[in-house]
């Protein structure tokens, strides 16, 4: 985190005076822990941005009979570290854990939240297992998942004739899920998977070897089942080795910050799927404007926007059922969230399904060329919109035990 002397002093004095006066005026505190990647490859797409957006949601729900306290910690993308922090937090009275990018960590926290009957609001992790085989009555999966990405980008490319695929896959829960879900779409559309390489995550820097293997497969599409710096490095290698001339590049998970890192020169024309973009409509632009200063003058990325939406809706449910009841029973709080329709500036109106999946419209974006982009982060144009009900995996296909057939 960014500290300077003044903020430390301010925090110190607030800590000594504030709790007493607030406790008298407002009653109970809802404690929300943002468990995220502060020091690794996902920091820019989650990290401090997620904390800022969670705080923004907390600020909007001030004075509803409870106070909101936001904590944050770095899970270093390691399931053991994440699980320890989650246990500690829940035992110390944290009511809800937010964000948790990196699927392997998220699946661990998912278990712990259920065990301790607390709330887990996931925005950062992608694996669709969170609302499938491993679904939980204590978890809401808000922003996106591997199935939605696979359908969004994979589906669009198969439709335009890209019917043979080769995957470069990060060798852990997320990469496997993304590859599996995309391959399913490819096969359903009559296409075929010509092969895949699974590389060690996060210890891989050079992707040229994998890019050349992809080239030798003679597939039409290179599916990149990875994220962040790895995707950027894969695209750089693909361009260098002339892969983009013979194959279509499908970056299955890519966001505004990654485009910023890659540069429009290399990124232009890429198709990608996201459920939030800051310049989508008046409400998203207003949200961006409100949070810009706290966000180091950058627009929110998709995952932080999801932290905002999920936290806001959770706090609405808390206000509805009363803070004491929400703190006592995480399962009941999540049930209340599912019972109430959602509406926020980032995702518009939507709802949470029985299996914990939040649904909203999903967008296929095409990256602008350098000439089309007028300002920093002005990177996308909308290529297609999938309505909420079609964008996510149908409940009966996920194998979630919460779904009554």
């Amino acid at each position: 985190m960014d500290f300077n002397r003044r903020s430390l002093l301010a925090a110190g004095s607030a800590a000594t005076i504030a709790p007493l006066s607030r406790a008298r005026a407002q009653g109970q505190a809802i404690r929300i822990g943002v468990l995220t990647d502060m020091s690794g490859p996902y920091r820019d797409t989650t990290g401090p941005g997620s904390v800022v957006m969670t705080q923004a949601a907390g600020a909007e729900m001030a004075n509803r009979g409870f106070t909101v306290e936001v904590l944050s910690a770095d899970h270093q993308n390691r399931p053991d570290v994440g699980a320890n922090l989650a246990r500690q937090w829940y035992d110390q009275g944290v009511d809800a854990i937010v964000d948790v990018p990196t699927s392997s960590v998220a699946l661990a926290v998912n278990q712990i939240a259920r065990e301790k009957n607390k709330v887990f609001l996931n925005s950062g992790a992608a694996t669709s297992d969170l609302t499938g085989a491993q679904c939980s009555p204590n978890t809401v999966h808000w922003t996106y998942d591997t199935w939605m990405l696979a359908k969004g980008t994979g589906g669009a490319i198969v439709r335009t004739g890209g019917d043979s695929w080769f995957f470069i896959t990060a060798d852990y829960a997320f990469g496997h899920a993304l590859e599996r879900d995309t391959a399913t779409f490819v096969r359903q559309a009559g296409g075929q998977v010509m092969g895949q390489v699974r590389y060690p995550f996060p210890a891989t820097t050079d992707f040229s070897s994998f890019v050349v293997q992809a080239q030798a497969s003679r597939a039409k599409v290179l599916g990149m089942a990875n994220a962040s710096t790895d995707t950027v490095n894969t695209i750089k290698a693909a361009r260098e080795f002339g892969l983009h001339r013979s194959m279509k590049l499908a970056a299955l998970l890519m966001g505004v910050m990654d485009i910023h890192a890659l540069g429009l020169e290399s990124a232009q024309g890429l198709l990608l799927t996201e459920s939030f973009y800051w310049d989508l409509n008046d409400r998203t632009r207003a949200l961006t404007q409100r949070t810009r200063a706290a966000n180091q003058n950058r627009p929110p990325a998709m995952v932080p926007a999801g932290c905002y939406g999920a936290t806001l809706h959770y706090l609405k449910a808390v206000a509805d059922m009363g803070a004491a009841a929400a703190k006592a029973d995480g399962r009941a709080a999540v049930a209340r969230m599912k019972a109430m329709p959602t509406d926020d500036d980032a995702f518009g109106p939507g709802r949470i399904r029985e299996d914990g999946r939040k649904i909203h419209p999903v967008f296929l974006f095409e990256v602008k060329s350098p000439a089309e982009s007028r300002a920093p982060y002005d990177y996308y144009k909308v290529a297609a919109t999938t309505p909420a009900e079609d964008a996510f995996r149908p409940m009966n296909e996920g194998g979630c035990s919460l779904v009554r057939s």
Partner: protein
Amino acid sequence: MLEFLETITGVPTPLLFGQLLLGLINGAFYAMLSLGLAVIFGLLNIINFTHGAQFMMGAFVAWMLLAWAGIGYWGALILAPLIVGATGVVIERLMISRLYKLDHLYGLLLTFGIGLMIEGVFRNEFGSSGLPYRIPAELSGAWDLGFMFMPIYRGWVVVFSLVICLATWLVIEKTRLGAYLRAATENAPLVQAFGVNVPRMITLTYGAGVALAALAGVLAAPIYSVNPQMGTNLIIVVFAVVVIGGMGSILGSVITGFGLGVVEGLTKVYWPEASATVIFVIMAIVLLTRPAGLFGRA
């Protein structure tokens, strides 16, 4: 012959040649980085764990030179190592020089800490997702070698780093300066008694080792994402390279660097999941059978 190769390896020959070549290219980075480490360890007896951060700084300084001063790749190739090397000199003078009388472990801990701090500062300033840096126009494009597409820039990396490795080896083994360096490694007080300013030589050696890391960073900037953690993954492998080659052995680290690049490249074809582990398996085997490393003197 080619068909025979294909039968025993189970991989089409063109692909195999391509992978060997790619292995050499990665080996070039390993060689340049382990060269700097070996030079520093040879003279200072310091295991420089800041090396990864200094590699990263090289790439970032190249980016800054372009973005803030309009100085392109060729200028950066000269200036970035000088600038980062100078920061190395400051670190050596202010901090590392106080530890020479202590055990290796202290130097390791200090440089590891400095590395983490540098990485943290860059992460705070520039974020984690990285910055774009383009391949210079003169070196963009690719040759069609028949069995694979060879980007000109990657060819340049191999040739350039071979030249640098050879030059460093010549300086240390064949010049008077190199002779002083080697003598000071063996017996510093004696060399000092002959009127050679050993502390200054040590400082400059550290600066030169750091400059080599930064040079590798500039070479890497156009092909990898320029981000604060870019050195972390690489540096662990490079340490294994140095250990396998024999701590402090210049030639050993260069040969092992290229060799292990090739081994890793082949693993990426046959068993990609293990490509991050294979070098450490080799390290374990070498340490068990030849504790001083392949080229080290026990």
